[in-house]
């Protein structure tokens, strides 16, 4: 399977003297959904910022489709769509305008846009909000706009930070189903979430970050192998054992 994202010996953070991440190593392959899990402050958001190129590594590098941001900014930026933890929208734009803007920024053809938007609006039950200004949306709806903006553009990699916050149960279910559909079409997803019971059944692999280091990674089965004494433990139990041991 082709590697889409490669995080290589990444040490990073805002200040050189106090790195938040230490030698972080992992990859995401085409058609894979990978869960990035860890306690608050473990370094998940910092890892995502490094992948987004908002921070520069002190050591190591991040490549998307084999290229770093500096080597091929167009390829890099075009390969990635991002859903932030907190919705970030323009108050002066409607839902429709946000979606159009995302499509324009990523160079989506008008015809493709129209097809995709129709599907997404129905899926996330946002048809009647299409012309609503973002400031009049509830938090969950704002989150849906963020998700739809990312899903419109069909990049090779989706990076999604805590996507379930504020979503109603139906929204969560539809989001998960849609991610499975994207995966089956070959897209890769890097997902960070605290709702371990939910992502347990959806992610192909997990990366456990603790104090800025990767303390375990692999499929659920591989993680179970490392903690045999727990038997057929859930992801949550394994995670608890891991961070308790590493704390």
């Amino acid at each position, binding site marked *: 399977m082709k590697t889409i994202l490669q995080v290589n010996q990444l040490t990073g953070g805002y200040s050189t003297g106090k790195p938040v991440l230490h030698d972080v190593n992992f990859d995401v392959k085409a058609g894979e959904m990978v869960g990035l899990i860890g306690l608050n402050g473990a370094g998940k958001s910092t890892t995502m910022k490094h992948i*987004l190129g*908002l921070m*520069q590594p002190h050591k190591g590098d991040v490549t998307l489709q084999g290229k770093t941001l500096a080597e091929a900014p167009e390829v890099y930026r075009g390969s990635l769509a991002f859903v932030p933890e907190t919705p970030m929208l323009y108050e002066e734009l409607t839902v429709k305008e946000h979606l159009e803007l*995302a499509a*324009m920024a990523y160079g989506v053809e008008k015809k493709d846009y129209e097809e995709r938007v129709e599907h997404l609006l129905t899926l996330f039950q946002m048809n009647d909000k299409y012309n609503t200004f973002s400031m009049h949306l509830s938090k969950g709806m704002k989150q849906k706009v963020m998700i739809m903006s990312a899903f419109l553009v069909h990049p090779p990699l989706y990076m999604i930070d805590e996507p379930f916050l504020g979503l109603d149960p139906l929204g969560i279910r539809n989001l998960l189903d849609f991610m499975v559909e994207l995966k089956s079409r070959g897209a890769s997803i890097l997902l960070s979430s605290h709702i371990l019971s939910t992502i347990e059944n959806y992610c192909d692999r997990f990366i456990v970050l603790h104090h800025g280091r990767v303390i375990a990674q692999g499929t659920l089965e591989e993680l179970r192998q490392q903690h045999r004494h727990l038997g057929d433990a859930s992801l949550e139990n394994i995670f608890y054992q891991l961070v308790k041991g590493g704390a």
Partner: protein
Amino acid sequence: MNLQSLWRRRKSAFWQEVFPYFRYVGQSGFLLFLGFLFIGGAAGYVGFLGRIPADFPIRTVSLIVLLPFVLWSSFRTFLQPADLVYLLRVEPRMKEYFRKSIGYSVKPKLILLSIVYGILWLLYFRADQDPKPFLLLWGVLLALNIMNSYGSWQERRMSRPGARWSYRLTRCLISIVLLAVWLWQPTWKAVIFSLIVIITYVVALRVPRKHAVPWELLIATERDQRGRFMIFLNWFVDVPSIPQKVYKRTWLNGLGKWIRFQQDSAYEYLYLKTLLRSDVLGMVLRLTALGMLILYWVRSSNWALPLYAFMLLIIGTQLTAIRRFHRYSFWASIYPIPYHFRKKAVVKVARRTHLALAVFLWLPFLLTSGAWPMVFAALVGGIAFVYFFQWAWSQKKWMEHEDDEDL
């Protein structure tokens, strides 16, 4: 996606938003005040031109007057938090956007620098023994400001905060030295020295690692600049939202300790802590420092007392902004504390701060020789002024009821 037109749309949206407020700036008498200041200043300046003392330190004065305008190199980018999601894809093309932004930000500074230089020139060519040609020095000043803008933009792109700060400091030092060299040294020496320094500086700017677009920093800076603009407008009229910048100022943390740990003091605690970390405190402290400096100079003249009162008035007016903190706070309507306690707390915090600053402002009077009764009368007068000001303010109608619009 046309990034240049996006920039233009954002610029005009910003001006459309703030333009209506300028009516209130005009009505407030501020422009009239500026006009009087200008006429008075011009008259004094022209008078001074006729009787410049022989030993007038024109080069030092020119350095002090010109330096802030040479260094001034902020940028308005009109970036918004959502750009992190929607514009990240077009990052490789963002140069188009920032070209507009840089032009828009640099031009007014060059014009202002030119005006200040034009006014100063009248004094400079009379007072200096060996003045530089007008056009030459003008060109040098513009070049120095452009160098500062270029350096400042490159600093923003640097990924390490340490590098940003050290380059910023270096830029300030270089500007002081270059300006001084042009004022004090012969032209040929100044040309050679400037070329060596500027070329070295520009080469050195290439060393640190940089972001193509420092998104997070630019978004935060834009928010602060917008906030400062809104605070300025807020002196004249109620603006709907003032994004507050928080300054940690940990050295002032001890000041909250004297507030008693009891329900009645909750708002006082909240407002004091907020004030200590707000822009407003920075502003009144700067005004106090400026006032102390001026009062030190004029402490023995007839101007001292009116100036003392004037500074207290300005500081008091600034402090009234405290009432806007937490205006729409949800918690304030939840706390089991009577509503009017809030106004009392605001006035108390403002009054105490005002009193403390009145004492600081008065300190230069202690350096006058003799006339001790007058010196202490000034302090008593200052304190009385503060009490009267705060009492008059507390009598005005604001924060009367929970559903008040507070205008």
